[in-house]
């Protein structure tokens, strides 16, 4: 049985005034993880926000779960795809549970009261991220790694098929990074989540994702782990000598 397609981008160009990324064709299935790498300012976050429907594509289309995001309302989009940006301007006076509950916002009714399904989704998200013990702790009273887990639990509570993460492991020490990627792998296997992650660390990208999309000044292309030209392609994208590309395992 083949996994269902979750994300499909066709001839996509994204950016603000001028395109940062153009001519991109991308397909992602249930349970797959795609890492996006590239130098600073090349448009990785812009691409992620376009895939989330937060920015309109300059040309082309983005379909998530078969629906064209450009034709979806904010609410409909938030039931299909969610994005976790790198910056965390969130209110740290919230408790972990309150933050996770915010993930249910698109599912709430007129008066915004959570129903049994919402409460169950929050409990499941807290359990999946091992946060039951911290649920009543304020976000400014937990570590950076725990806070990042709480943010991911919020996106899980949203129950979308596609999760877009912008540098999810930044500011985390090695142990927390390992824990975070183990959690994401478990979620992909158990919940068949499709993931797109912007990552800075090249070995980490090849280790934690099934596929790697490299964005450079000359364009966007997937560079598979088995590509004999991989080192050269990465060096050209990052505009550094080949010998400066770290060991990729």
């Amino acid at each position, binding site marked *: 049985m083949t996994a269902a397609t979750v994300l499909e981008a066709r001839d996509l160009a994204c950016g603000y005034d001028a395109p940062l990324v153009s001519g991109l064709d991308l397909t992602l299935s249930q349970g797959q993880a795609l890492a996006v790498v590239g130098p600073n300012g090349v448009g990785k976050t812009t691409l992620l926000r376009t895939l*989330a429907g*937060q920015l309109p594509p300059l040309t082309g289309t983005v379909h998530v779960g078969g629906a064209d995001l450009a034709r979806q*309302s*904010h*609410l*409909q*989009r*938030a*039931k299909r795809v*969610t*994005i*976790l*940006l790198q*910056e965390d*301007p*969130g*209110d740290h*006076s*919230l408790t972990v549970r*309150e933050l996770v509950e*915010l*993930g249910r*916002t*698109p599912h*709430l009714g*007129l*008066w*915004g*009261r959570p129903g049994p399904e919402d409460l169950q989704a929050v409990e499941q998200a807290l359990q999946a991220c091992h946060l039951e013990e911290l649920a009543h702790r304020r976000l400014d009273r937990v570590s950076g790694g725990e806070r990042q887990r709480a943010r991911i639990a919020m996106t899980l509570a*949203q129950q979308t098929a596609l999760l877009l993460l912008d540098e999810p492991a930044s500011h985390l020490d090695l142990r927390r990074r390992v824990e975070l990627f183990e959690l994401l792998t478990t979620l992909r296997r158990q919940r068949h989540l499709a993931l797109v992650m912007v990552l800075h660390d090249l070995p980490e990208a090849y280790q934690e994702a099934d596929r790697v999309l490299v964005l450079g000044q000359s364009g966007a292309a997937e560079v598979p782990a088995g590509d004999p030209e991989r080192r050269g392609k990465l060096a050209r994208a990052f505009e550094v000598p080949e010998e400066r590309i770290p060991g990729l395992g």
Partner: protein
Amino acid sequence: MRRQAWIWTAGLAALLLLSAWLSMALGSQQGRLVLEPDWIATVSFDGDQSLHARVLLFWRAPRVVASMVIGACLAVAGLVLQGLTRNPLADPYLLGISGGAGLAVVLVHALPALVVGAGWWLVPVAAFSGAQGAALLVLGIARSSGVSGGRLSVLGLILAGVVINAFCAAVMSFLLVRFDPFRLRITTLWLAGGIGFTRWDQLAFVTLLALAAWLFLRLQAHRLNAFALGTSGASAVGVDADRVLLRAALVSSLLTGLGVALGGLLGYVGLIVPHAVRGLVGSDFRRTLLLTAVAGALLVAVADSVARLVLAPEELPVGVLTALIGCPVLLMLLRVQLRGAGRGS
């Protein structure tokens, strides 16, 4: 927490009823406080023309209701502004929004023929328009002075408020010096937070608008909660952030305008009450909106009774009392905010 919010709301609502009864029953005779519960028990609403009936129905009762409506309006406006700007110092008075409303009302007072021609509804409508203009200006100035992580800077907001307040105060002073002594006294008393000039028809109009505004905000409560994630975060959970932000800012300006139309420039209510309510039950708008309205109503109702009776037969403007409570709270919040900003830089 939700249960706690209901307990607090019910408790404060009971206190509000008690304070309303006391405000109606308490009077002063030759400088002495007198409790007159018989007045309330014996008054007839069917054309009773006795002195005590007229005092109750046309003086004390509208005043009590007005003070509650003003308190609820200003407190809820402050709560929403603080949530939208993610800044605990965003009080309609400090931000100059009340000042804009006050200026618009003074302009109307400067042209009495306008009110006579158009009707009593002109004052609340003018106050709302003034509040709206000031809110757009202050948010625009603060936004141009910098947004960090979806949060308007403390200093940017406060300084924008100082500028708008200074401008409104200057224009008001210019207009007031041209007023005749009677209009000058009435207007300056009202500006200082004098709640004594309320008509039932105006009160009913303002109350209906305030209830509609509150209901609108309550239906937006879960979307307003999402602003705790910043505007991008709110958008990620399905909130049309720009639209909700604009509508909620408009509605909080409306509430400010309504409060100012009835009670003048009553400061700090929108600062003290939301801060205390969040301390009691957290920041979830689904819990805080009703509690803030009840607590705001209670604060101004009690303050107005004290202001009416403490120097009787003279009256103290209510704004003096709210400022006496509000200034230390503002200083404390400012200290916490600036210390936080200092640590962040």
